[in-house]
């Protein structure tokens, strides 16, 4: 490593990096506990992915931002092709077609698409005049950017990731300055479209929504997970049962205890105090994103960081609301903590993008 990149490394936002590392290590610890003190079951893999992901993160952080900018569309199109590839020849797992088997690695292009979408939208708005973003003809491309992959992901079928992608895209559009009336119109049309969307939902998806609306309706089936998750969190009380002492979460009533429901065991063992601490750590990470935004000058950089921060928030919020029974169970992981390679990797890549554009905040990007 030459002197230049060493200096670049020193100038990175280390507050953000340490916060992320802390979250990842909390994940390792909780996975160790949920595996009944078996490090090899999930924690080992999670640590390895954390290490590998952070190397990727640093690699992106040290990239020339102009290269990142130039390759945004290409990346988006490659990911789109991969999504179509999943549609055509993906490996079916747990009843859904989400994985693309590249031989050496099984990847979920739908999660990577989040990065691709943010970069593509950011690039698009970089080349639009701020006063033109709300023009109808300038909404066509962003709409295509969002809807095409969302539909492909929805068809896998993966309702959760599809909704997350749309929410991410809408957040970027909002930050880009799209007139709030469009969001109002969009919201009303979605409300009007609900009966039609309902028709296209698969039985398990309908079931999840119905059970969310009334968990007691199916206390032994789908609603059982929500009830059991609430019992786990609630029984933790103020100070929790202690690390490795959780009784509820470790029992097999939650099939996703190490992935989507990981917060349940954390809150059971660490209690309200631990829950607040974790929540504050996420608040810190998100706050750091917006702190960075204030120092950025071009739309691409701003939308990249704002988009990544927004996506992170959406995931954290939806996951926590889900396990606490505030939202239907849609299958969204808790960033950096849930077990799952693609989720961890994509969020670390997102941080890499943030670090990259921050480091080169003074670099001029073409505006047309």
């Amino acid at each position, binding site marked *: 490593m030459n002197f230049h990149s060493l200096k670049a490394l020193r100038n990175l936002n280390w507050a953000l990096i340490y916060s992320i590392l802390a979250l990842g290590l909390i994940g390792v610890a909780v996975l160790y506990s949920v595996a009944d003190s078996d490090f090899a079951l999930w924690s080992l893999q999670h640590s390895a992915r954390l290490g590998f992901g952070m190397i990727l993160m640093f690699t992106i952080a040290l990239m020339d931002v102009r290269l990142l900018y130039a390759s945004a569309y290409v990346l988006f199109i490659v990911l789109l092709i991969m999504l179509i590839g999943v549609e055509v020849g993906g490996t079916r797992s747990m009843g859904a077609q989400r994985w693309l088997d590249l031989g050496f690695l099984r990847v979920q292009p739908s999660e990577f698409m989040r990065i691709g979408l943010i970069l593509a939208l950011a690039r698009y708005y970089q080349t639009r005049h701020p006063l033109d973003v709300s023009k109808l003809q300038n909404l066509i491309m962003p709409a295509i950017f969002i809807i095409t992959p969302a539909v492909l992901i929805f068809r896998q079928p993966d309702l959760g990731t599809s909704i997350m992608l749309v929410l991410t895209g809408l957040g970027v559009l909002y930050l880009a300055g799209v007139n709030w009336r469009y969001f109002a119109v969009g919201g009303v049309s979605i409300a009007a479209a609900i009966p039609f969307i309902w028709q296209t939902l698969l039985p398990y998806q309908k079931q999840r929504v119905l059970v969310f609306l009334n968990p007691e309706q199916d206390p032994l089936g789908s609603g059982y997970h929500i009830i059991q998750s609430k019992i786990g969190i609630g029984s933790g009380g103020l100070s929790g049962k202690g690390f490795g002492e959780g009784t509820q979460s470790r029992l097999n009533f939650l099939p996703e205890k190490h992935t989507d429901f990981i917060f349940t065991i954390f809150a059971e063992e660490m209690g309200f105090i631990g*829950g607040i601490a974790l929540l504050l750590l996420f608040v810190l990470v998100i706050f750091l994103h917006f702190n960075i935004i204030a120092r950025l000058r071009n739309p691409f950089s701003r939308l990249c960081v704002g988009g990544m921060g927004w996506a992170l928030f959406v995931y954290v919020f939806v996951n926590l609301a889900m396990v606490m029974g505030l939202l239907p169970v849609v299958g969204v992981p808790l960033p950096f903590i849930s077990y799952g390679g693609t989720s961890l990797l994509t969020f670390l890549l997102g941080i890499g993008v943030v670090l990259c554009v921050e480091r080169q905040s003074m670099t001029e990007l073409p505006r047309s």
Partner: protein
Amino acid sequence: MHLTEPDDIDFNRRSLLMLVGQMGLFGGLLWRLQYLQIEQAKIYKNLAEANRVDFRPVAAPRGIISDRNNILLADNDYNLTVDFIPEQADDIEAAIADLSAVLNLSPAHQKDILKRIARAPAFRAVEIDDMLSWDSFARLHLNLPYLAGVAPRVGDLRIYPYGKATAHILGYMGAKTKQDIARYGNTPADHIGKDGIERQYEKALRGRAGARQLEVNARGRTVRQISNNDGTPGNDLRLTIDIRLQEFTRKRLGSRAGSVVVLDVHSGEVLTMVSAPTYDPNQLSHGIDNASWQKMVTHEKKPLLNKSIAGLYAPGSTFKMIVALAALEAEVIKTDEKIHCDGTFHFSDEIFHCWQKEGHGSMTLETALEQSCDTYFYDIAVRTGIDKIEEMAKRFGLGRPTGIDLMGEQGGVVPGRDWKRANYETQWWSGETVIAGIGQGFLLSTPLQLASIMAMIANGGRYITPFIAAPLPVYGTDEVATPEHLRLIRRALYRAVNRPKGTAYHSSLLVRGQRMAGKTGTVQVRRITQEERESAGGVIANADLDWRLRDHALFVGYVPHDKPRYAISVVIEHGGAGASVAAPIARDIMHHLLSLKPAPQPFVATNVEDA
């Protein structure tokens, strides 16, 4: 940089708004967390205490077994059982003492239980006792709150309404061993098929296990059932057996040792298969004490052995049909050719005796079979040669298992030059061909093979594979012998039973114009010396011999004589003469079969996955 560009202001305002919104939503989450963990903490803590999930596999109901007329042969019943889970009791000895007081267990039994508990892992349930009365079971439930670690449950029990009559066919249920699990996979059922149909069709009968998810409290008591999956019940099996005939046959055999097999000559369906003496599978399924078990294992009449498929006997004179068919095919005799019998047959310095000391006189093939003249068959066996006899015997399926769907079947022995070289490392002696002519010597066959040979002769020479539950693919439709030759044999067998000179004349039967045809066999199990023959008393009578030295009595036959439908083989170990012992038994069984009202229903096999 122009800090006051309109888009800057707008962007800063929007991002700030977004941050505020996010913090607001996080505030909502915090409020929710507070609600669950502080406000409602007590409620959830109580729920958690009562809330442990236990996953228990449950056996699917085992398939029931019925006979061809849908009469139940094997059924399921409950078995009131009590288990003990060591990890749920703080003081195991005290817990067992309390339990013993409720169930009145003997101190010896208690000791045995403690020993078994010490061997098992703490979380594993140990069976304390089963076959409890309702009384004890009720008392147990009443005292349950004071009995730590005790888990009463309703276990499974197999019952056999016809017990002894079906023992060898159905087998019995017993405790699972490592070998059983390795072979058939594990099952939550208490028992596994140990023999016969229960073992052969173990997988089909057991079905797919289900599972019950239970919520249990801190002491392991069930709070409620979360989910229940009963699994897939096992396949029911319908057997080709007609239990009426089976039961009659068992009674007819009484205390004798031996076997009776009745087959449908066209399909190979086994209507009856009795091996005697028998045992009570109900007793075995309930658990049997070691002394009784040892007695059964070492009994000289071998009650546990299914003699019909695993008992090996020289076929004796019942083999003469095979020799005759081989000779006819080799064209070494003509059907009207006469051979003189003076009671002995001289062959290369040796004298072979006919059972009729005075000799039969002039014999044709038909009369030789009718009167079972040994001399005639000595002669044609030598003319035919062992190779052709061996070939014919093998064509009828001798020397290999028939392939019936029961485990443990023996194949028997068809001797020949290669066989002799492989097993004795010597050449074949032509003297051995002579005694092979009357089915003695090295020849060994099972009663099932004898019945199946009889069936093939009766059905016109089509090869059959006997079966008891599922029809198996036949080896081929090739005819095993020329129909014309078989007609001749059948004519002779008719005479053997229905003509005054026939060996089984005293066992002739007539039911609505239907008569029996057949062949007797008396198999020597000891060597009769020349001195014994020439002694004052002559050959010692069976009645004067030790049971184990007496002749085996055999009979094979079929009914009706003109349109054969059922074939039978009767083998009575050390019973004496075939004509006086085996033939009357065959007559009575066939008489019963032809008189059955209603007649046995046609068997349509239910689909069973191959075990």
